[in-house]
Protein backbone atom coordinates (compact mmCIF):
# COMPACT_ATOMS: atom_id res chain seq x y z
CA UNK A 1 0.00 0.00 0.00
CA UNK A 2 1.38 3.40 -0.93
CA UNK A 3 1.56 6.25 1.49
CA UNK A 4 -1.33 8.49 0.91
CA UNK A 5 -2.49 11.44 2.92
CA UNK A 6 -6.18 10.67 2.86
CA UNK A 7 -5.56 7.14 4.13
CA UNK A 8 -3.48 8.59 6.94
CA UNK A 9 -6.23 11.00 7.94
CA UNK A 10 -8.89 8.35 7.77
CA UNK A 11 -6.89 5.86 9.81
CA UNK A 12 -6.18 8.49 12.45
CA UNK A 13 -9.93 9.05 12.86
CA UNK A 14 -10.53 5.31 12.95
CA UNK A 15 -7.70 4.88 15.42
CA UNK A 16 -9.01 7.56 17.76
CA UNK A 17 -12.48 6.08 17.58
CA UNK A 18 -11.25 2.57 18.35
CA UNK A 19 -8.87 3.93 20.99
CA UNK A 20 -11.69 5.79 22.70
CA UNK A 21 -13.66 2.55 23.01
CA UNK A 22 -10.58 0.86 24.48
CA UNK A 23 -10.33 3.83 26.85
CA UNK A 24 -13.84 3.23 28.20
CA UNK A 25 -12.90 -0.35 28.97
CA UNK A 26 -9.38 0.39 30.22
CA UNK A 27 -10.50 3.16 32.56
CA UNK A 28 -13.00 0.93 34.38
CA UNK A 29 -10.46 -1.82 34.65
CA UNK A 30 -7.85 0.65 35.93
CA UNK A 31 -10.30 2.10 38.44
CA UNK A 32 -10.83 -1.31 40.01
CA UNK A 33 -7.09 -1.92 39.96
CA UNK A 34 -6.39 1.39 41.68
CA UNK A 35 -8.62 0.44 44.61
CA UNK A 36 -8.10 -3.30 45.01
CA UNK A 37 -4.70 -3.81 43.29
CA UNK A 38 -5.68 -6.77 41.16
CA UNK A 39 -6.38 -7.27 37.46
CA UNK A 40 -10.07 -7.94 37.17
CA UNK A 41 -10.24 -10.40 34.28
CA UNK A 42 -14.03 -10.52 34.59
CA UNK A 43 -14.14 -7.00 33.21
CA UNK A 44 -14.52 -8.37 29.68
CA UNK A 45 -17.54 -10.30 30.93
CA UNK A 46 -19.26 -7.05 32.02
CA UNK A 47 -18.77 -5.79 28.49
CA UNK A 48 -20.41 -8.89 27.02
CA UNK A 49 -23.32 -8.59 29.46
CA UNK A 50 -23.82 -5.01 28.30
CA UNK A 51 -23.63 -6.03 24.64
CA UNK A 52 -26.22 -8.81 24.95
CA UNK A 53 -28.62 -6.74 27.04
CA UNK A 54 -28.49 -4.03 24.38
CA UNK A 55 -28.96 -6.60 21.61
CA UNK A 56 -31.76 -8.27 23.52
CA UNK A 57 -33.63 -5.04 24.13
CA UNK A 58 -33.29 -4.06 20.48
CA UNK A 59 -34.53 -7.39 19.16
CA UNK A 60 -37.10 -8.25 21.80
CA UNK A 61 -35.05 -11.13 23.20
CA UNK A 62 -35.68 -13.41 20.24
CA UNK A 63 -32.12 -14.63 20.79
CA UNK A 64 -32.90 -16.42 23.98
CA UNK A 65 -36.40 -17.57 23.29
CA UNK A 66 -36.57 -17.89 19.55
CA UNK A 67 -39.45 -15.48 19.25
CA UNK A 68 -40.40 -12.00 20.32
CA UNK A 69 -41.54 -12.39 23.88
CA UNK A 70 -41.28 -8.76 24.79
CA UNK A 71 -42.17 -5.62 23.08
CA UNK A 72 -38.87 -4.73 21.47
CA UNK A 73 -37.74 -1.26 22.29
CA UNK A 74 -36.93 0.29 18.90
CA UNK A 75 -40.44 1.64 18.90
CA UNK A 76 -39.81 3.22 22.27
CA UNK A 77 -36.62 5.12 21.73
CA UNK A 78 -34.43 2.32 20.47
CA UNK A 79 -30.78 2.49 21.18
CA UNK A 80 -31.17 5.04 23.98
CA UNK A 81 -33.28 2.75 26.12
CA UNK A 82 -31.30 -0.31 25.12
CA UNK A 83 -28.09 1.49 26.03
CA UNK A 84 -29.43 2.55 29.41
CA UNK A 85 -30.58 -1.01 30.04
CA UNK A 86 -27.15 -2.34 29.08
CA UNK A 87 -25.43 0.08 31.44
CA UNK A 88 -27.70 -0.69 34.37
CA UNK A 89 -27.48 -4.46 33.74
CA UNK A 90 -23.70 -4.57 33.38
CA UNK A 91 -23.32 -2.30 36.42
CA UNK A 92 -25.50 -4.65 38.45
CA UNK A 93 -23.59 -7.73 37.27
CA UNK A 94 -20.31 -6.02 38.20
CA UNK A 95 -21.57 -5.25 41.72
CA UNK A 96 -22.93 -8.78 42.07
CA UNK A 97 -19.60 -10.25 40.96
CA UNK A 98 -17.82 -8.22 43.61
CA UNK A 99 -20.26 -9.20 46.35
CA UNK A 100 -20.41 -12.91 45.53
CA UNK A 101 -16.92 -13.68 44.26
CA UNK A 102 -14.49 -11.08 45.56
CA UNK A 103 -15.83 -9.82 48.88
CA UNK A 104 -15.60 -13.19 50.64
CA UNK A 105 -11.98 -13.45 49.51
CA UNK A 106 -11.15 -9.88 50.50
CA UNK A 107 -12.48 -10.53 53.97
CA UNK A 108 -10.21 -13.52 54.48
CA UNK A 109 -6.90 -12.52 52.97
CA UNK A 110 -5.00 -9.53 51.71
CA UNK A 111 -3.31 -11.62 48.98
CA UNK A 112 -4.57 -10.15 45.74
CA UNK A 113 -3.50 -13.22 43.77
CA UNK A 114 -6.66 -15.00 44.93
CA UNK A 115 -8.80 -12.18 43.58
CA UNK A 116 -7.01 -12.42 40.26
CA UNK A 117 -7.69 -16.15 40.02
CA UNK A 118 -11.32 -15.69 41.08
CA UNK A 119 -11.76 -13.07 38.36
CA UNK A 120 -10.50 -15.51 35.74
CA UNK A 121 -13.09 -17.98 36.99
CA UNK A 122 -15.89 -15.40 36.81
CA UNK A 123 -14.81 -14.50 33.29
CA UNK A 124 -15.18 -18.14 32.20
CA UNK A 125 -18.53 -18.43 33.98
CA UNK A 126 -19.99 -15.35 32.26
CA UNK A 127 -18.75 -16.43 28.84
CA UNK A 128 -20.31 -19.86 29.21
CA UNK A 129 -23.58 -18.57 30.55
CA UNK A 130 -23.98 -16.79 27.22
CA UNK A 131 -22.85 -19.81 25.21
CA UNK A 132 -25.59 -21.85 26.90
CA UNK A 133 -28.22 -19.13 26.87
CA UNK A 134 -27.86 -17.75 23.37
CA UNK A 135 -25.27 -19.93 21.63
CA UNK A 136 -21.89 -19.01 20.23
CA UNK A 137 -23.13 -17.37 17.03
CA UNK A 138 -21.89 -13.99 15.89
CA UNK A 139 -24.65 -11.44 16.01
CA UNK A 140 -24.88 -7.97 14.57
CA UNK A 141 -26.94 -5.22 16.15
CA UNK A 142 -30.06 -4.62 14.01
CA UNK A 143 -29.60 -2.40 10.97
CA UNK A 144 -30.24 1.24 11.63
CA UNK A 145 -29.25 1.09 15.29
CA UNK A 146 -26.54 3.57 14.54
CA UNK A 147 -26.62 6.02 11.63
CA UNK A 148 -24.81 4.50 8.66
CA UNK A 149 -24.01 7.85 7.06
CA UNK A 150 -20.50 8.74 5.97
CA UNK A 151 -19.24 12.26 5.62
CA UNK A 152 -17.07 13.16 2.64
CA UNK A 153 -14.45 15.63 3.78
CA UNK A 154 -13.09 16.07 0.27
CA UNK A 155 -9.86 14.69 -1.19
CA UNK A 156 -11.19 11.15 -0.86
CA UNK A 157 -11.36 11.35 2.94
CA UNK A 158 -14.54 9.96 4.44
CA UNK A 159 -15.57 9.62 8.06
CA UNK A 160 -18.20 7.21 9.38
CA UNK A 161 -20.92 8.72 11.50
CA UNK A 162 -20.65 5.72 13.83
CA UNK A 163 -16.95 6.39 14.40
CA UNK A 164 -17.69 9.97 15.31
CA UNK A 165 -20.52 8.78 17.52
CA UNK A 166 -18.37 6.36 19.48
CA UNK A 167 -15.66 8.99 19.83
CA UNK A 168 -18.21 11.52 21.07
CA UNK A 169 -19.79 9.14 23.55
CA UNK A 170 -16.43 8.03 24.88
CA UNK A 171 -15.43 11.66 25.47
CA UNK A 172 -18.80 12.26 27.17
CA UNK A 173 -18.49 9.29 29.52
CA UNK A 174 -14.82 9.87 30.31
CA UNK A 175 -15.63 13.52 31.04
CA UNK A 176 -18.50 12.38 33.26
CA UNK A 177 -16.17 10.06 35.16
CA UNK A 178 -13.65 12.87 35.58
CA UNK A 179 -16.39 15.13 36.93
CA UNK A 180 -17.56 12.42 39.34
CA UNK A 181 -14.04 11.78 40.65
CA UNK A 182 -12.95 15.40 40.95
CA UNK A 183 -16.14 17.19 41.99
CA UNK A 184 -18.19 14.90 44.20
CA UNK A 185 -17.89 13.67 47.75
CA UNK A 186 -17.78 9.99 46.79
CA UNK A 187 -15.35 10.80 43.98
CA UNK A 188 -12.98 12.30 46.53
CA UNK A 189 -13.42 9.22 48.70
CA UNK A 190 -12.55 6.98 45.75
CA UNK A 191 -9.38 8.96 45.05
CA UNK A 192 -8.43 8.71 48.72
CA UNK A 193 -9.12 4.97 48.68
CA UNK A 194 -6.93 4.59 45.60
CA UNK A 195 -4.15 6.11 47.67
CA UNK A 196 -4.82 4.05 50.82
CA UNK A 197 -7.96 1.91 51.14
CA UNK A 198 -7.52 1.07 54.84
CA UNK A 199 -7.08 4.66 55.89
CA UNK A 200 -10.12 5.69 53.83
CA UNK A 201 -12.17 3.57 56.25
CA UNK A 202 -10.81 5.69 59.11
CA UNK A 203 -12.33 8.76 57.44
CA UNK A 204 -15.82 7.44 58.05
CA UNK A 205 -16.12 6.09 54.50
CA UNK A 206 -18.11 2.88 54.19
CA UNK A 207 -15.43 1.04 52.23
CA UNK A 208 -17.73 -1.79 51.25
CA UNK A 209 -20.18 0.63 49.65
CA UNK A 210 -17.28 2.48 48.00
CA UNK A 211 -16.08 -0.70 46.36
CA UNK A 212 -19.63 -1.37 45.19
CA UNK A 213 -19.79 2.08 43.59
CA UNK A 214 -16.44 1.52 41.87
CA UNK A 215 -17.62 -1.77 40.37
CA UNK A 216 -20.91 -0.23 39.28
CA UNK A 217 -19.10 2.58 37.48
CA UNK A 218 -16.66 0.11 35.90
CA UNK A 219 -19.62 -2.00 34.74
CA UNK A 220 -21.37 1.02 33.20
CA UNK A 221 -18.28 2.04 31.25
CA UNK A 222 -17.69 -1.54 30.11
CA UNK A 223 -21.28 -1.70 28.83
CA UNK A 224 -20.83 1.44 26.75
CA UNK A 225 -17.64 -0.04 25.33
CA UNK A 226 -19.46 -3.32 24.71
CA UNK A 227 -22.25 -1.65 22.75
CA UNK A 228 -19.82 0.20 20.49
CA UNK A 229 -17.66 -2.87 20.02
CA UNK A 230 -20.67 -4.94 18.99
CA UNK A 231 -21.57 -2.21 16.53
CA UNK A 232 -18.03 -2.06 15.13
CA UNK A 233 -17.47 -5.82 14.98
CA UNK A 234 -20.16 -8.27 16.04
CA UNK A 235 -21.40 -9.67 19.30
CA UNK A 236 -20.36 -13.12 20.52
CA UNK A 237 -19.71 -14.65 23.95
CA UNK A 238 -15.93 -14.28 23.64
CA UNK A 239 -16.08 -10.60 22.69
CA UNK A 240 -14.78 -9.86 26.18
CA UNK A 241 -11.42 -11.21 25.05
CA UNK A 242 -10.88 -7.86 23.41
CA UNK A 243 -10.34 -6.50 26.92
CA UNK A 244 -6.81 -7.87 26.59
CA UNK A 245 -6.17 -4.86 24.38
CA UNK A 246 -7.58 -2.56 27.04
CA UNK A 247 -5.37 -4.29 29.64
CA UNK A 248 -2.36 -3.69 27.42
CA UNK A 249 -3.40 -0.04 27.05
CA UNK A 250 -3.76 0.31 30.83
CA UNK A 251 -0.32 -1.21 31.39
CA UNK A 252 1.27 1.05 28.79
CA UNK A 253 -0.37 4.07 30.39
CA UNK A 254 0.49 2.94 33.92
CA UNK A 255 -1.69 0.54 35.91
CA UNK A 256 -4.14 2.26 38.20
CA UNK A 257 -3.76 5.64 36.50
CA UNK A 258 -6.86 6.90 34.70
CA UNK A 259 -5.14 9.48 32.46
CA UNK A 260 -2.65 6.73 31.71
CA UNK A 261 -5.43 4.38 30.66
CA UNK A 262 -6.84 6.98 28.26
CA UNK A 263 -3.47 7.89 26.72
CA UNK A 264 -2.47 4.23 26.41
CA UNK A 265 -5.79 3.38 24.76
CA UNK A 266 -5.58 6.17 22.20
CA UNK A 267 -1.97 5.21 21.36
CA UNK A 268 -3.01 1.61 20.93
CA UNK A 269 -6.00 2.45 18.75
CA UNK A 270 -3.86 4.68 16.54
CA UNK A 271 -1.08 2.10 16.28
CA UNK A 272 -3.58 -0.59 15.30
CA UNK A 273 -5.34 1.43 12.66
CA UNK A 274 -2.16 2.88 11.17
CA UNK A 275 -0.73 -0.62 10.94
CA UNK A 276 -3.91 -1.82 9.30
CA UNK A 277 -3.86 1.10 6.87
CA UNK A 278 -0.22 1.10 5.87
CA UNK A 279 1.16 -2.36 6.56
CA UNK A 280 -1.45 -5.05 6.90
CA UNK A 281 -4.40 -5.91 9.04
CA UNK A 282 -2.77 -9.13 10.14
CA UNK A 283 0.08 -7.22 11.77
CA UNK A 284 -2.22 -5.28 14.14
CA UNK A 285 -1.90 -7.58 17.14
CA UNK A 286 1.81 -8.05 16.57
CA UNK A 287 2.27 -4.30 16.82
CA UNK A 288 0.08 -4.08 19.93
CA UNK A 289 2.02 -6.70 21.82
CA UNK A 290 5.38 -5.39 20.63
CA UNK A 291 4.41 -2.03 22.10
CA UNK A 292 3.66 -3.74 25.40
CA UNK A 293 6.99 -5.57 25.46
CA UNK A 294 8.95 -2.43 24.56
CA UNK A 295 7.12 -0.42 27.22
CA UNK A 296 7.77 -3.05 29.87
CA UNK A 297 11.45 -3.04 28.96
CA UNK A 298 12.05 0.70 28.98
CA UNK A 299 9.44 1.98 31.48
CA UNK A 300 7.82 -0.86 33.40
CA UNK A 301 5.60 1.49 35.44
CA UNK A 302 4.00 2.87 32.25
CA UNK A 303 3.67 6.54 31.33
CA UNK A 304 1.71 7.55 34.44
CA UNK A 305 2.58 4.66 36.77
CA UNK A 306 2.30 5.13 40.53
CA UNK A 307 5.46 6.53 42.03
CA UNK A 308 6.20 5.34 45.52
CA UNK A 309 7.08 8.47 47.44
CA UNK A 310 5.52 7.95 50.84
CA UNK A 311 7.35 9.70 53.60
CA UNK A 312 7.63 7.61 56.72
Amino acid sequence: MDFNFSTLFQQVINGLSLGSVYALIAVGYSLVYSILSFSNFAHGGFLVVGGYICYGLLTGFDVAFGREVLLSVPSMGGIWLAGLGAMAGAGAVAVLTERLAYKPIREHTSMTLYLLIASMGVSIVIENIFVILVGGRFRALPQGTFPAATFDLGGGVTVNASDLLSLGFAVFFLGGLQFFLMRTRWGLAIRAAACDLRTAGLMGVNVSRLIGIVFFVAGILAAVGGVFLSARYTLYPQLGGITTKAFVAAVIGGLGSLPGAVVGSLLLGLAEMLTAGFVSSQMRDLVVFSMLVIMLLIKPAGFFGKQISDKI
Partner: protein
Amino acid sequence: MGTLLEVKNMSVSYGAIRALRGFSLTLDEREIVAVIGANGAGKSTFMNAVMGMTACESGDVFLDGAALPRESWRIVRSGLSLVPEGRKVFTTLTVLENLRIGAFPLSKPDPRDMDWVFSLFPRLGERREQPAGTLSGGEQQMLAIGRALMSRPRVLLLDEPSLGLAPIIIRDIFAELRRINEEGVSILIVEQNARQALLLSRRAYVLQTGCLVKEGDSKALLADPEIKAAYLGH
Protein backbone atom coordinates in the same frame (compact mmCIF):
# COMPACT_ATOMS: atom_id res chain seq x y z
CA MET B 1 -17.08 15.19 84.55
CA GLY B 2 -18.41 11.79 83.56
CA THR B 3 -16.75 8.90 81.81
CA LEU B 4 -16.81 9.43 78.05
CA LEU B 5 -14.99 6.40 76.71
CA GLU B 6 -14.69 3.06 78.43
CA VAL B 7 -12.75 0.03 77.20
CA LYS B 8 -13.42 -3.16 79.10
CA ASN B 9 -11.21 -6.22 79.17
CA MET B 10 -9.91 -6.03 75.61
CA SER B 11 -7.82 -8.92 74.20
CA VAL B 12 -6.33 -9.26 70.73
CA SER B 13 -4.25 -12.07 69.23
CA TYR B 14 -2.47 -12.46 65.93
CA GLY B 15 -2.35 -16.23 65.58
CA ALA B 16 -0.22 -17.42 68.50
CA ILE B 17 0.92 -13.90 69.42
CA ARG B 18 -1.19 -12.44 72.21
CA ALA B 19 -0.73 -8.75 71.52
CA LEU B 20 -3.20 -7.43 74.10
CA ARG B 21 -4.44 -9.22 77.20
CA GLY B 22 -7.48 -8.02 79.06
CA PHE B 23 -6.74 -4.30 78.89
CA SER B 24 -9.24 -1.86 80.38
CA LEU B 25 -9.21 1.92 80.25
CA THR B 26 -11.42 4.91 80.87
CA LEU B 27 -11.33 8.42 79.49
CA ASP B 28 -13.32 11.22 81.10
CA GLU B 29 -14.98 14.09 79.33
CA ARG B 30 -12.33 16.70 78.37
CA GLU B 31 -9.53 14.55 79.76
CA ILE B 32 -6.17 13.67 78.19
CA VAL B 33 -5.09 10.09 78.83
CA ALA B 34 -1.84 8.49 77.67
CA VAL B 35 -0.85 4.88 77.08
CA ILE B 36 2.90 4.38 77.14
CA GLY B 37 4.99 1.33 76.38
CA ALA B 38 8.03 0.12 74.46
CA ASN B 39 8.11 -1.25 70.90
CA GLY B 40 5.70 -4.11 70.47
CA ALA B 41 3.87 -3.44 73.74
CA GLY B 42 0.55 -3.55 71.91
CA LYS B 43 -0.22 0.16 71.74
CA SER B 44 -1.14 0.29 68.04
CA THR B 45 -3.01 -2.98 68.38
CA PHE B 46 -5.12 -1.37 71.09
CA MET B 47 -5.86 1.75 69.03
CA ASN B 48 -6.73 -0.26 65.93
CA ALA B 49 -9.00 -2.54 67.91
CA VAL B 50 -10.86 0.43 69.41
CA MET B 51 -11.34 1.83 65.89
CA GLY B 52 -12.62 -1.49 64.53
CA MET B 53 -9.61 -1.93 62.25
CA THR B 54 -8.42 -5.07 64.05
CA ALA B 55 -10.76 -7.77 65.29
CA CYS B 56 -10.60 -8.44 69.01
CA GLU B 57 -11.12 -11.76 70.74
CA SER B 58 -12.95 -10.14 73.61
CA GLY B 59 -13.63 -6.70 74.94
CA ASP B 60 -16.25 -4.00 74.81
CA VAL B 61 -16.00 -0.31 74.08
CA PHE B 62 -18.58 2.17 75.31
CA LEU B 63 -19.02 5.80 74.39
CA ASP B 64 -21.28 7.66 76.81
CA GLY B 65 -22.38 4.30 78.14
CA ALA B 66 -23.54 3.00 74.75
CA ALA B 67 -21.69 0.16 72.99
CA LEU B 68 -19.71 1.31 69.95
CA PRO B 69 -20.66 -0.16 66.58
CA ARG B 70 -18.26 -2.68 64.98
CA GLU B 71 -17.37 -1.15 61.62
CA SER B 72 -14.74 1.59 61.49
CA TRP B 73 -16.84 3.97 59.46
CA ARG B 74 -19.70 3.79 61.96
CA ILE B 75 -17.27 4.26 64.85
CA VAL B 76 -15.96 7.45 63.21
CA ARG B 77 -19.53 8.66 62.81
CA SER B 78 -20.26 8.09 66.47
CA GLY B 79 -17.47 10.49 67.46
CA LEU B 80 -14.05 8.82 67.52
CA SER B 81 -11.27 9.85 65.16
CA LEU B 82 -7.82 8.29 64.87
CA VAL B 83 -4.55 9.88 63.81
CA PRO B 84 -2.87 6.66 62.71
CA GLU B 85 0.70 5.62 63.35
CA GLY B 86 2.92 6.84 60.51
CA ARG B 87 0.40 9.65 59.70
CA LYS B 88 -1.05 7.91 56.62
CA VAL B 89 -1.99 11.12 54.84
CA PHE B 90 -3.32 10.63 51.30
CA THR B 91 -0.10 11.53 49.51
CA THR B 92 -1.61 12.04 46.05
CA LEU B 93 -4.32 14.38 47.32
CA THR B 94 -3.72 18.02 48.18
CA VAL B 95 -3.74 19.35 51.73
CA LEU B 96 -7.21 20.78 51.13
CA GLU B 97 -8.53 17.48 49.76
CA ASN B 98 -7.08 15.61 52.74
CA LEU B 99 -8.99 17.91 55.07
CA ARG B 100 -12.16 17.60 53.00
CA ILE B 101 -12.09 13.82 53.14
CA GLY B 102 -11.70 14.13 56.91
CA ALA B 103 -15.12 15.81 56.95
CA PHE B 104 -16.69 12.95 54.95
CA PRO B 105 -19.05 11.82 57.75
CA LEU B 106 -20.62 15.29 58.11
CA SER B 107 -23.69 15.89 56.01
CA LYS B 108 -23.01 19.62 56.00
CA PRO B 109 -19.32 20.48 56.44
CA ASP B 110 -18.75 23.84 58.13
CA PRO B 111 -16.03 26.04 56.55
CA ARG B 112 -15.14 27.23 60.05
CA ASP B 113 -13.77 23.76 60.86
CA MET B 114 -11.12 24.21 58.21
CA ASP B 115 -10.35 27.74 59.42
CA TRP B 116 -9.84 26.31 62.89
CA VAL B 117 -7.38 23.70 61.58
CA PHE B 118 -5.48 26.40 59.70
CA SER B 119 -5.37 28.55 62.84
CA LEU B 120 -3.91 25.61 64.78
CA PHE B 121 -1.41 24.80 62.02
CA PRO B 122 -0.80 27.89 59.86
CA ARG B 123 1.78 26.00 57.79
CA LEU B 124 -1.03 23.86 56.37
CA GLY B 125 -2.87 26.97 55.21
CA GLU B 126 0.18 28.15 53.31
CA ARG B 127 0.45 24.78 51.57
CA ARG B 128 -3.23 24.06 50.93
CA GLU B 129 -2.87 23.32 47.20
CA GLN B 130 0.24 21.17 47.63
CA PRO B 131 0.06 17.36 47.33
CA ALA B 132 0.36 15.92 50.84
CA GLY B 133 3.21 13.66 49.70
CA THR B 134 5.43 16.71 49.24
CA LEU B 135 5.02 17.91 52.86
CA SER B 136 7.73 17.40 55.45
CA GLY B 137 7.22 14.74 58.11
CA GLY B 138 6.15 17.33 60.68
CA GLU B 139 3.71 18.97 58.30
CA GLN B 140 2.26 15.57 57.41
CA GLN B 141 1.68 14.92 61.12
CA MET B 142 -0.09 18.29 61.43
CA LEU B 143 -2.21 17.38 58.42
CA ALA B 144 -3.09 13.99 59.88
CA ILE B 145 -4.24 15.70 63.10
CA GLY B 146 -6.16 18.37 61.18
CA ARG B 147 -7.80 15.73 59.01
CA ALA B 148 -8.91 13.79 62.08
CA LEU B 149 -10.42 16.95 63.59
CA MET B 150 -12.52 17.65 60.49
CA SER B 151 -15.06 14.99 61.51
CA ARG B 152 -15.61 16.93 64.78
CA PRO B 153 -14.68 14.05 67.06
CA ARG B 154 -15.53 13.89 70.74
CA VAL B 155 -12.47 11.69 71.25
CA LEU B 156 -9.27 12.27 69.30
CA LEU B 157 -7.02 9.21 69.31
CA LEU B 158 -3.35 9.65 68.42
CA ASP B 159 -0.93 6.81 67.70
CA GLU B 160 2.64 8.03 68.24
CA PRO B 161 2.37 11.54 66.84
CA SER B 162 6.03 12.19 67.81
CA LEU B 163 7.39 9.36 65.65
CA GLY B 164 10.44 10.46 63.67
CA LEU B 165 10.06 14.19 64.39
CA ALA B 166 12.60 16.71 65.68
CA PRO B 167 12.15 17.73 69.35
CA ILE B 168 11.18 21.29 68.45
CA ILE B 169 8.39 20.09 66.12
CA ILE B 170 7.21 17.65 68.77
CA ARG B 171 6.91 20.51 71.29
CA ASP B 172 4.87 22.55 68.77
CA ILE B 173 2.53 19.70 68.01
CA PHE B 174 1.99 18.80 71.66
CA ALA B 175 1.23 22.46 72.44
CA GLU B 176 -1.47 22.40 69.76
CA LEU B 177 -2.87 19.16 71.20
CA ARG B 178 -3.34 20.99 74.48
CA ARG B 179 -5.20 23.80 72.65
CA ILE B 180 -7.38 21.24 70.90
CA ASN B 181 -8.21 19.70 74.27
CA GLU B 182 -9.09 23.10 75.72
CA GLU B 183 -11.66 23.43 72.92
CA GLY B 184 -13.44 20.44 74.43
CA VAL B 185 -12.01 17.45 72.55
CA SER B 186 -10.99 14.56 74.79
CA ILE B 187 -7.67 12.98 73.83
CA LEU B 188 -6.35 9.44 74.04
CA ILE B 189 -2.69 9.33 73.08
CA VAL B 190 -0.35 6.37 72.69
CA GLU B 191 3.39 7.09 72.79
CA GLN B 192 6.86 5.66 73.07
CA ASN B 193 7.99 9.18 73.94
CA ALA B 194 6.89 8.71 77.53
CA ARG B 195 8.15 12.06 78.82
CA GLN B 196 6.13 14.14 76.35
CA ALA B 197 3.05 11.96 76.77
CA LEU B 198 3.19 12.16 80.57
CA LEU B 199 3.70 15.92 80.49
CA LEU B 200 0.65 16.32 78.27
CA SER B 201 -1.74 13.90 79.94
CA ARG B 202 -3.57 13.90 83.25
CA ARG B 203 -3.53 10.13 83.70
CA ALA B 204 -1.59 7.33 82.04
CA TYR B 205 -1.51 3.56 81.58
CA VAL B 206 1.70 1.59 81.12
CA LEU B 207 1.61 -1.41 78.78
CA GLN B 208 4.21 -4.17 78.66
CA THR B 209 3.90 -6.99 76.12
CA GLY B 210 0.16 -6.60 76.02
CA CYS B 211 -0.41 -6.37 79.78
CA LEU B 212 -1.22 -3.40 81.96
CA VAL B 213 1.61 -3.01 84.48
CA LYS B 214 0.83 0.37 86.01
CA GLU B 215 -1.68 3.19 85.88
CA GLY B 216 -2.09 6.49 87.66
CA ASP B 217 -1.65 10.23 87.62
CA SER B 218 0.86 11.28 85.01
CA LYS B 219 2.68 13.51 87.49
CA ALA B 220 3.14 10.60 89.85
CA LEU B 221 4.34 8.35 87.04
CA LEU B 222 6.87 10.97 85.95
CA ALA B 223 8.38 10.79 89.44
CA ASP B 224 8.11 6.99 89.74
CA PRO B 225 11.64 5.50 89.91
CA GLU B 226 10.66 2.35 87.96
CA ILE B 227 9.09 4.38 85.17
CA LYS B 228 12.07 6.72 85.17
CA ALA B 229 14.47 3.83 84.74
CA ALA B 230 12.45 1.99 82.11
CA TYR B 231 10.88 4.75 79.99
CA LEU B 232 12.41 8.12 80.74
CA GLY B 233 16.03 7.17 80.16
CA HIS B 234 17.82 9.70 82.31
